[in-house]
C-alpha cells in the first residue's frame, strides 16, 4: 500500500536522462502492452458508458438498447436522484474532513516523533488493509450496535440520549467511511511531512515563533502536497462508495453508488450510466477546482 504514500513522492521524479538514439522506440514498446490494456479496459469503457447514458431509456436487456442520443436522460435522472447525489457529496466531504482531522496528527506523529518506531507505526497503518474491508465494515456494525460498548460509553457520557443509537444513522455511515479511507489520507500526508527539512522548523523556533505559529507558517504549507493528494484519495472513493451506506445505514442514508448498483443490476442501463457519468463529471470538476485553489498541480 506504500504506493499511495508514494503518490506524492513519485511527483518528485527527476527528469529522465537525455534520450540516446533509438531509445525512444524502446519507451513506446515498453508502454505498449500496459497502455493497450488501459486503453481497451479503461478508456473505451468510459466511452461506452457515455454512449450508454444516451441510449433510449425504454429499451431492455432482452430487446437491446437503441442509440437515440437521449440527452434527456441526464435531466430525468438528476430530477429523480438529486437527493442521494447531494448526500453522497456531503458524506464524502464530511469523511474527508474527519480523515484530515484524524490523519494529520497520526501522520505527523509518525514522521516527526516516532523515531525508530517509524516503520512499525507505518506498518500498523497499512495492516488493516490485509483483512477484507467488507469484513471490517461488518465489524463496525457490531462495534456500533445498540448494546455495544461504544453506545454504552456515549450514553454514560451523556453525548447520546437514553434511546440514542449509532447504527443505522448518518454518524455510523460517516464513521465507517472515515475508517475505510483514513489510510489513504495518512500515507500521502506522511510522505510529504517526512520530506520537510527539519532545519526549517528549527529556524521557526529560532525566530521566536511559538510551536503553533511555526506549524501554521512552516509545516502546514510545506505539507500541502500531501493534504491535496490525501484529500483527493479520500474524497473520490468515498463519494462513489455504497458499502458503508448499505451495511451501516438505512435507506435514508442511501448514497448514489447504491442507486447506480441497483439500477445496473435491474438492467436499467441508460439511467444507471447517466448517473455514473454525472458522478464522474462532478468529481472531475470538483477535483479541478480544488487543485486550482490549492495550487498544487504536481499530482502525477
Amino acid at each position, binding site marked *: 500500500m506504500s504506493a499511495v504514500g*508514494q503518490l506524492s513522492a513519485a511527483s518528485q521524479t527527476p527528469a529522465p536522462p537525455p534520450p540516446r538514439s533509438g531509445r525512444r522506440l524502446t519507451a513506446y514498446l515498453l508502454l505498449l502492452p*500496459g497502455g493497450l490494456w*488501459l486503453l481497451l479496459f479503461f478508456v473505451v469503457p468510459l466511452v461506452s458508458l457515455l454512449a450508454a447514458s444516451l441510449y433510449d431509456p425504454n429499451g431492455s436487456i432482452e430487446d437491446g438498447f437503441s442509440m437515440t442520443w437521449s440527452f434527456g436522460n441526464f435531466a430525468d435522472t438528476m430530477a429523480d436522484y438529486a437527493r442521494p447525489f447531494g448526500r453522497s457529496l456531503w458524506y464524502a466531504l464530511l469523511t474527508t474532513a474527519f480523515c484530515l482531522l484524524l490523519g494529520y496528527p497520526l501522520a505527523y506523529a*509518525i514522521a516527526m516523533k516516532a523515531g525508530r518506531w517509524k516503520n512499525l507505526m507505518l506498518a500498523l497503518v497499512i495492516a488493516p488493509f490485509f483483512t*477484507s474491508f467488507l*469484513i471490517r465494515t461488518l465489524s463496525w456494525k457490531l462495534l456500533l450496535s445498540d448494546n455495544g460498548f461504544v453506545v454504552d460509553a456515549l450514553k454514560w457520557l451523556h453525548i447520546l440520549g437514553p434511546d440514542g443509537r449509532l447504527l443505522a444513522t448518518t454518524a455510523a455511515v460517516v464513521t465507517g467511511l472515515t475508517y475505510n479511507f483514513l489510510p489513504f489520507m495518512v500515507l500521502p500526508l506522511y510522505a510529504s511531512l517526512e520530506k520537510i527539512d527539519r532545519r526549517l522548523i528549527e529556524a521557526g523556533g529560532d525566530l521566536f515563533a511559538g510551536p503553533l505559529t511555526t506549524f501554521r507558517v512552516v509545516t502546514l504549507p510545506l505539507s500541502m502536497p500531501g493534504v491535496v493528494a490525501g484529500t483527493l484519495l479520500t474524497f473520490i472513493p468515498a463519494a462513489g462508495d455504497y458499502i458503508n451506506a448499505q451495511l451501516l445505514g438505512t435507506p435514508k442514508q442511501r448514497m448514489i*453508488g447504491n442507486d447506480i448498483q441497483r439500477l445496473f443490476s435491474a438492467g436499467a442501463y441508460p439511467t444507471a450510466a447517466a448517473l455514473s457519468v454525472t458522478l464522474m463529471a462532478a468529481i472531475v470538476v470538483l477535483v479541478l477546482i480544488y487543485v486550482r485553489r490549492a495550487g498544487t498541480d504536481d499530482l502525477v
Partner: protein
Amino acid sequence: MTRVGRFIGQHLIMVLGLIVLLYLFAPIVVVILMSFNQPKGRLSYTFDGFTWDNWANPCQPYGLCDAVSTSLRIGLLATVVATALGTLMAFAMVRHRFRGRSATNLFIFLPMASPEIVLGSSLLALFVSSGFGGRLGFWTILIAHVMFCLSFVVVTVKARLAGMDSRLEQAAMDLYANEWQTFWRVTFPLVFPGIMAAALLSFSLSFDDFIITNLNAGTTVTFPMYVWGSAQRDIPPQINVIGTAMFLLALIFVLAGEVTRRRRARS
C-alpha cells in the same frame, strides 16, 4: 509556559496518533475475536461463546471455500499480469523521455482517481454493448482486476526506480558489463523490492475488491461477494476465520521482508 507547551507538543501528538491507530485497529480486534465465536442462533452477530470449531472447519459454510479459491486464482493471475505490464511501463516512464510523457502520466493516474463504481459500471457497459453481457464471469473479473491494479504497480515501481542511484549502473557499464548484464545484475536486483511491493499491493487490491467485481462477475462468486451475500442473511463466523488468516499471512509476509531488510542493512 513554553516548557508546558513543548511537553504538549512532544507528547500530545503522539498520544493523538496512538488513539487514531486504535481506531484503525478496533475492527480487526473484532474480526479476530469473532473468528472464535460460537453463535447461538443463525442470525446472531454478537459474541456468544468461545470455540475452536470455526478454525477446525473453515470450509463448513456452503460455497465459502470455493469463493476463496476463486479469489485466490483471480488474485494470483491478476497480480502476475498487472505486475509484468506495470513494471515495463514504470521503466519507460522513469528511464525514457518521449513525446506524450506527461499525458501518459495523467492517463496512468486517472484510473486511480476514478470512483470504483464508475470503473465497474463503464466496464459493464462495454461488455454488454460488445455482446459479452451473457458471458460475465472469471475472465471479465480478471480483465477488470488487471486494469485497476496496473496504475498502482506503475506508481510503486516508479517510486523505487526514481529513488535509485543511477551511478551504480554507470559503474557497471564502466566495468565493461553490457546493457543486458547491467540490467540483470544491477538494475533488476535493486528494483526487485519495489516490484515485490507492487505485487503484494496488487494481490491485496484484487483479493479485496468488491464494487467493480460485483458488477462484472455474472454468476461467479468471489470471497468479498460471498461476504456481501451472507451479510444480507446470516454471517457465518468462518468468514472471520478467513479474514484473520489473511491478516496473519500478510503480517508474516511484511515482517519477513522487514527482517531481511534489516539483516541486509547490517551486513
